[in-house]
């Protein structure tokens, strides 16, 4: 175990964390604004990957696949929020069960449309190379993932902190009732945040599909990891999601490399511990 090992593992952890940020930030915002535990978030991730595959098969364009898939799934999220979740009212159990019912429906739909085979999303050749720095080879695609996540994180942060709409979202996270009281249309905010979350998850699916693959069951594999990110970072906090994603990405990589037999345990035990001690997560708002 020399320096190279640590550098490569850290790099892999950070790039995995970048992917997790895309999935986790949406989930975190949805929870923060609507207090909904969205169990179909993993499905958005998987469906995003599948839609991207279809786009690539028909148009042969990877670049086109990214926005098309993300927007398509954002639309799915929008419809789900408007037609099913909104009329349900506030009852955490029913909301959770409804989203999980949809997760099962999506699972079957994906199986019907895209069969049960494993697929890979192949990025363009330009991104499939590696670059060598100091004798260590870094896959360019992972660098791309980190850059993308950082750019999106920055854009989200600017939108949240510097725009009027962002201020409204933050107000809704802090106290939805008061926000309504001062004239913020929280219903519209919820709708936008829910489809934004779906958008980000689908984006993660397209980008992550290149090295995780796209296969049935990925939805429920991704879901608990996304929750780990959200819980460790704190619900409803963008910065928290970034740090949570980084921590989970690193913990996952080093866990698998250093103590493979208990690697998932090292991921979820801290999550349970944090929840027990500080339910709002490390950086969550009270």
């Amino acid at each position: 175990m020399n320096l190279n090992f640590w550098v490569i593992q850290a790099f892999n952890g950070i790039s995995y964390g970048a992917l997790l940020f895309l999935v986790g930030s949406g989930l975190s915002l949805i929870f923060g604004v609507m207090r909904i535990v969205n169990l179909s978030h993993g499905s958005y991730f998987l469906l995003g990957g599948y839609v991207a595959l279809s786009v690539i098969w028909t148009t042969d364009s990877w670049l086109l696949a990214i926005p098309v898939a993300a927007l398509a799934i954002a639309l799915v999220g929008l419809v789900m929020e408007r037609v099913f979740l909104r009329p349900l009212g506030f009852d955490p159990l029913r909301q959770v069960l409804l989203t999980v019912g949809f997760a099962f429906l999506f699972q079957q739909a994906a199986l019907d449309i895209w069969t049960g085979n494993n697929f890979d999303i192949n990025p363009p050749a330009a991104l499939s190379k590696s670059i060598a720095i100091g004798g260590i080879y870094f896959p360019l695609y992972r660098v791309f993932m980190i850059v993308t996540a950082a750019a999106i994180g920055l854009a989200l942060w600017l939108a949240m902190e510097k725009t009027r709409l962002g201020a409204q979202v933050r107000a809704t996270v802090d106290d939805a009732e008061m926000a309504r009281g001062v004239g913020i249309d929280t219903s519209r905010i919820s709708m936008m945040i829910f489809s934004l979350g779906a958008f980000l998850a689908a984006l993660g699916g397209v980008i992550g599909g290149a090295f995780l693959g796209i296969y049935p069951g990925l939805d429920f594999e991704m879901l608990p990891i996304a929750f780990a990110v959200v819980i460790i970072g704190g619900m409803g906090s963008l910065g928290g999601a970034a740090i949570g994603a980084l921590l989970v990405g690193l913990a996952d990589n080093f866990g698998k490399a250093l103590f493979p037999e208990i690697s998932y345990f090292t991921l979820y035990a801290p999550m349970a511990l944090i929840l027990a001690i500080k339910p709002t997560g490390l950086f969550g708002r009270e």
Partner: protein
Amino acid sequence: MSSQAVKIAIVVAALAAVLLVVPNTNSFVMLLTTRALAFAILVMSVDILLGYTGLASLGQAAYLAVGAYATAILATKYHIGLGWDFWLVLLFGMLVGAALAALFGLFAIRATGVYFLMITLALGQCVWGLAYRWNSLTGGDNGINLRERPKFGPIDLANENTFFFLVFAVFCVSLVMMYTLVRSPFGRSLAGIRERELRMKILGYNTWLHKYIAFIIAGAFGGLSGVLWAHTAGIVSPVNVELPTSVDALLMAVLGGSGTLVGGVIGTFIVFFLREYLSTVVPWWQYVLGVVYVATILYLPTGLMGIPERLRQWRAKSGNPQSRKLAPAAS
């Protein structure tokens, strides 16, 4: 006869019908019934938390899993639990489930609502992670195959018929035990906590301890269900701890109607038979299941067991003017 006695009579009659009819059907139905009965114990344990205490757990599969893994490991590695000592393993499974719940409860019980959902999810994933990765103990992804079922002298549980009777008997005992629990003063105070925890606190109840004990009891029955499940399925693998398994248990309880115990059993049977039977008939069976779930949550929040009550309300509402005209003395 009071209405409660009528309900008990109906349940007993239904169980008797199962006992009489199922052994005379084909092996497919019997296998499914055995599976559903074993799993129904887990679903009832979910209902003790959900329906009687107001805690929705998303990690109940963990207790089934420890019971099942304990059974499988004892049987394959140490050859324990394949004779009369099966009954000891049954007890041990309950103990392991209770012990795990006693540990997890320390973390989980403080939380309420959405946070309880998520913390039980996290704790369940801890167990899943261990089952999935701890190859030397759990066999990792492949799980553990159980090749033998217990033999009591001349009685061999490898016979599906005999095994069905065993599972049926354990199921009935569990049902009676859980029913006694929820009707006991302890069960009544749990319901009080579900309705309004603050009031119970003011009345001097230690609500944390009540919930903690309920959590442990649910864990014990989860472990018991795991012991039966291991021998029913013949294989124990990380699938048994996956999030969808916990979600299934929760959905079955809600589908049947939470807070009724029996509702959960009905929900389990419906889902098992829909899933196994429908999948042999049509390829799109999971849509049916998904729609059943979504429709239940949207239109029938009280579950199937809530239908009679809703009908009564509906009839009272729509039939009121008429009944006043026609039969004023009826009430």
